[in-house]
């Protein structure tokens, strides 16, 4: 079974801090994703990566950056945390299969981040 592990379930940081959220997957998936989830807004894609050192912006990349130095690890970075970045952050991974269906995404259980 695919396992996507996020480093923290709960995290509290202060405004202006640099925050790192870590995600590791154990199934050698090419794709990795970072989402945030807010009440009434569903899941919104922040960034995704389809290979090591490759990244693409999602719908809401402002205020965030990402790093993928190894295939199994995808980090989300809040360069200078602000209160409007208080949210649930979800990481996911999936396999690339260009010929057939979209391969399902496998999600971690999320990090609930509070910026004070």
């Amino acid at each position, binding site marked *: 079974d695919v396992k996507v592990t996020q480093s923290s379930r709960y995290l509290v940081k202060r405004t202006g801090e640099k925050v790192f959220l870590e995600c590791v997957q154990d199934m050698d998936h090419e794709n990795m994703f970072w989402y945030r989830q807010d009440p*009434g807004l*569903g*899941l919104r*894609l922040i960034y995704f990566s389809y290979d090591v050192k490759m990244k693409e912006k999602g719908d809401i990349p402002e205020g965030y950056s990402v790093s993928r130095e190894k295939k199994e690890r995808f980090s989300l970075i809040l360069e200078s945390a602000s209160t409007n970045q208080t949210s649930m952050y979800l990481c*996911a991974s999936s396999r690339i299969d260009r010929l057939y*269906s*979209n391969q399902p995404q*496998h999600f971690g259980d*999320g990090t609930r981040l509070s910026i004070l």
Partner: protein
Amino acid sequence: LAKTTQPISMDSYEGQEVNITCSHNNIATNDYITWYQQFPSQGPRFIIQGYKTKVTNEVASLFIPADRKSSTLSLPRVSLSDTAVYYCLVGSPWSYIPTFGRGTSLIVHP
């Protein structure tokens, strides 16, 4: 990217069949339809995926009409544990960018 429209919420009772419809008027020829389920404090979980007609697995069925402009997720004989948010997505094998939307919040009552 094809957008999807789902009801915001639905209510049902234990033992009933629940059908959640998703509209995707601009679905492209290569797009597949995928449904996820999310429980509180967990990440979404893949339920079912299809391209046309009907797909069934141990959890649900997915009905897709010929024009593919909508799809219906069918949950047979729901229980309290089916209370969750259900997301419909459309996308092609060549599209890396999945769009989840707001989903449908299903509440199953005793």
